[in-house]
């Protein structure tokens, strides 16, 4: 069984990194890259074995006890889809940070926190117990707060503190929701909760818990009324951390948790879907509007994340198989593209010493290894035709039309145009020589950074191929099936226990 290695490898790496803290930094870099690489390979193997398993579900019982009294780690189609995405991004971020984090002292602290965060994210994805999910979420969140403040500059501390306050309040809401659920169902196992809720029917306590979870996980996912912290935190953090936060953390802690809880446990009711659609549309529009007029590229990318997360939530709310497909493709595509954008923004800042749009020019000529990845990822997020983002948005728009929401399709298309508009300025800075040339003094490029960016750019360019029938069948269809099956998740898990 490979499932426990999603926890053992990152946690073990974090602990051993502390043990060898004073060793050569190259050793730590190699160790980090090796760990993330093996995690990615294990994720791929898990993908294969999930497809081969009966009911497409793998179950590992920790310390030898079965649910409901023990804790099991469960991997199904949706989990393994997220696991592959997360560990793919983490691999490139680890390669990138081995070069980028040289400018900070005490690199081992960064690696320890990074791998604790990765362990938390992986733990959220494999947890089958709702309190266990909460615990792993807290590991990831607390490591993320510290990683945002890693530079200990004034604005980083401020961003980290605001993020931490919002995150802690959200965690309290989620914990209160878990307490109410336990009072109602007398179990903490997700499958058990799903069964108990199905037996008791929709009740008032369920509405209360839904509101608490929507507020809590919505805050973690930076949905529209709760998006304020994201722009600060994601723009102030060091570049690899921004890539991790924007690329995978909010999707694992926010979107995955919402999908798992509302679709697999509660059984998405019509009201919940309508609320999700409303939140998604609000996030799309607010994020896009706020992204206009930003002069800091990282701030712009952060608001763009709010907008793109809105697409995913909108698609989840529409809740047809095509919409789920669109949501998942968008999650994958946005994870890799936005991570790459943040990585390139770090590289631009490192080479040119600025993040202001009007001071950057001619990146593609001066530093092609930064410029081309930035161009491709921006094109992908804008939804320019051959790239992955285009197909994701197209599928979402089609799904809206197909399910009888033409207005939503119109809004989605409109926001797509707005995305193109607010990415226009940074793309011209990257492409062409504008403004003052003489003031920019280029620094020497770094091999590790360029390797990471170029190889992730290759992944971004070939991302549309996940829609090819063969790959789609093993990679995405399982996840769509999990979302479509809804509360029969409980029966599948209990079937695997027996």
């Amino acid at each position: 069984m490979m499932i426990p290695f999603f926890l053992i490898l990152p946690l073990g790496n974090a602990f051993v990194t502390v043990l060898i803290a004073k060793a050569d930094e190259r050793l730590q870099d190699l160790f980090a890259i090796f760990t993330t690489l093996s995690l990615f390979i294990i994720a791929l193997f898990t993908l294969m074995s999930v497809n081969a398993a009966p009911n497409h579900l793998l179950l590992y019982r920790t310390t030898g006890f079965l649910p409901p009294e023990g804790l099991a780690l469960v991997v199904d189609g949706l989990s393994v889809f997220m696991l592959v995405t997360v560990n793919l991004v983490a691999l490139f971020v680890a390669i990138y940070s081995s070069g980028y984090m040289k400018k900070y002292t005490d690199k081992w602290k960064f690696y320890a926190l990074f791998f604790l965060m990765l362990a938390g994210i992986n733990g959220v994805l494999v947890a089958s117990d709702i309190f266990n999910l909460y615990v792993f979420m807290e590991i990831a969140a607390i490591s993320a707060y510290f990683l945002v403040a890693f530079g200990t500059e004034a604005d980083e501390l401020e961003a980290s503190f605001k993020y931490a306050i919002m995150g802690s309040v959200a965690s309290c809401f989620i914990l209160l929701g878990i307490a109410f659920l336990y009072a109602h169902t007398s179990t903490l196992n997700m499958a058990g909760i799903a069964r108990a809720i199905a037996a008791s029917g929709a009740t008032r306590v369920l509405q209360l818990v839904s509101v608490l979870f929507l507020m809590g996980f919505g805050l973690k996912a930076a949905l529209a009324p709760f998006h304020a912290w994201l722009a600060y935190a994601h723009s102030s953090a060091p570049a690899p951390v921004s890539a991790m936060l924007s690329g995978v953390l909010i999707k694992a802690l926010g979107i995955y948790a919402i999908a798992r809880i509302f679709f697999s446990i509660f059984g998405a009711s019509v009201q919940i879907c309508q609320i999700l659609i409303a939140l998604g549309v609000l996030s799309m529009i607010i994020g896009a509007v706020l992204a206009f007029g930003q002069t800091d590229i990282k701030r712009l990318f952060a608001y763009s994340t709010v907008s793109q997360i809105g697409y995913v939530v909108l698609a989840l709310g529409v809740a047809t198989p095509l919409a789920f497909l669109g949501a998942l493709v968008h999650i994958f595509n946005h994870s890799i593209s936005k991570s790459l954008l943040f990585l390139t923004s770090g590289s631009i800042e490192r080479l040119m010493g600025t993040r202001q749009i009007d001071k950057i020019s001619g990146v593609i000529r001066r530093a092609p290894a930064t410029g081309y990845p930035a161009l491709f990822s921006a094109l992908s997020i804008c939804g320019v035709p051959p790239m992955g983002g285009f197909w994701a948005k197209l599928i979402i728009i089609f799904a809206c039309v197909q399910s009888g929401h033409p207005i939503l399709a119109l809004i989605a298309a409109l926001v797509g145009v707005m995305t193109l508009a607010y990415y226009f300025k940074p793309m011209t800075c990257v492409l062409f020589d504008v403004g003052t040339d003489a003031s920019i003094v280029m620094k020497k490029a770094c091999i590790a950074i360029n390797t990471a960016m170029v190889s992730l750019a290759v992944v971004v360019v070939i991302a549309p191929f996940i829609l090819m029938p063969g790959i789609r069948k093993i990679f995405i269809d399982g996840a769509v099936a999990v979302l479509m099956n809804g509360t029969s998740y409980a029966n599948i898990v209990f079937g695997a226990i027996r």
Partner: protein
Amino acid sequence: MNHQSEKGMTFIVKTVTKLTLGFILLYGIYITFNGHDAPGGGFAGGVIVALALVHVMLAFGKEASLKLLSARTLRLFMATAAILFLYGIFKGYPKAIFGNEFILPLSEMIIVSVGLFVIFIALVLVPKSDKRSE
């Protein structure tokens, strides 16, 4: 607090600390390992041990306690305990699960005591002594 903690407190405090330290540590260890039959456990015991270490640090000053437990030692202790903890949870079961009654509380006690002691040093003492140099 900061001026005295650099040199340590008075003779009386030091003597009383020497006398009571062993008992506090013993009580922490007792709480740790008695957890399986009575209230207590690794975390509570760990906090008690951490408070004992803090007590030593306040009485004898930062240098003396750091001489006893250097930063390197603290780091090694914590990382080793964490690895032991990880091993204890994911090792082969169920034949060895009963050994966990010793391994898990012990390693949790070490993580908690050392960790809280380190946080205490980092938060309470270092910023103040650092301020002079800024």
